[in-house]
């Protein structure tokens, strides 16, 4: 146990930092380098770090739901972003946007954002599922 002390202490600081940074990477992805995939990978890295410092079971517990379910919800989110435009007569994957003011800030929300969020969930769920399954052997 003693040899993991530094790693565990480090993980406690780094994991939240990684998670916040992954969100940042995901959000800036629309106009800059980044996006759902790289953000998701960073978040997954954070969880893996946690898993290394403690164990895979507590890493899995951190997610609260089964990784495959996270993966499924991600797919659902991304695909709903793809399908929504079909109902207003555009082809699949066309971007749809809404603009509004909130707390004096101009907010520009759209389906690509939803898509990225879905990809983020997919990657986190997928990587977690892989790690958990491989660890079970």
């Amino acid at each position, binding site marked *: 146990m003693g040899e993991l002390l530094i790693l565990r202490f480090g993980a406690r600081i780094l994991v939240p930092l990684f998670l916040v940074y992954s969100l940042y990477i995901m959000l800036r992805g629309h*106009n800059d380098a980044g996006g759902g*995939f790289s953000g998701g990978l960073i978040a997954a890295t954070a969880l893996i770090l946690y898993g290394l410092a403690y164990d895979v079971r507590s890493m899995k517990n951190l997610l609260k739901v089964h990784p495959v379910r996270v993966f499924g919800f991600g797919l659902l989110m991304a695909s709903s972003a793809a399908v929504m435009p079909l109902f207003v007569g555009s082809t699949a994957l066309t971007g749809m946007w809404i603009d509004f003011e909130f707390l004096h800030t101009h907010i520009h929300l759209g389906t690509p954002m939803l898509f990225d969020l879905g990809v983020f969930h997919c990657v986190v769920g*997928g990587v977690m599922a*892989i790690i958990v*399954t*491989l660890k079970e*052997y």
Partner: protein
Amino acid sequence: MESLIVIVVGVLYMTGIYLLLNRSILKIVLGISIISQGVNLMIFASAGMARFNSPIIGANEKVLDLANAVDPLPQALILTAIVISFGFLAYAIALLIKVRNTADTDDVDEVRFAE
């Protein structure tokens, strides 16, 4: 710059093919993943290797400055290919562990039950 990349691609292919000719499954999988890095680099080189801007129309512009913008498609292709090879690698590792557990070997020639 392109010629350097081409040489690197060639070396990656060479290494990969050398590993592919091995009998250990692990080395075959490694060989395949090294070749796929080579492929990615090759696609990247096909877009041209000079320094360009990202192909985004800025806030104050109306049209894209085509002369200085990079072709975004190869990068999108590579990203997709990387994601796919990531999935394949995960599957390959799982398969490798499973084969070792059931057959006690990772030699391709010794894993023969069905024929």
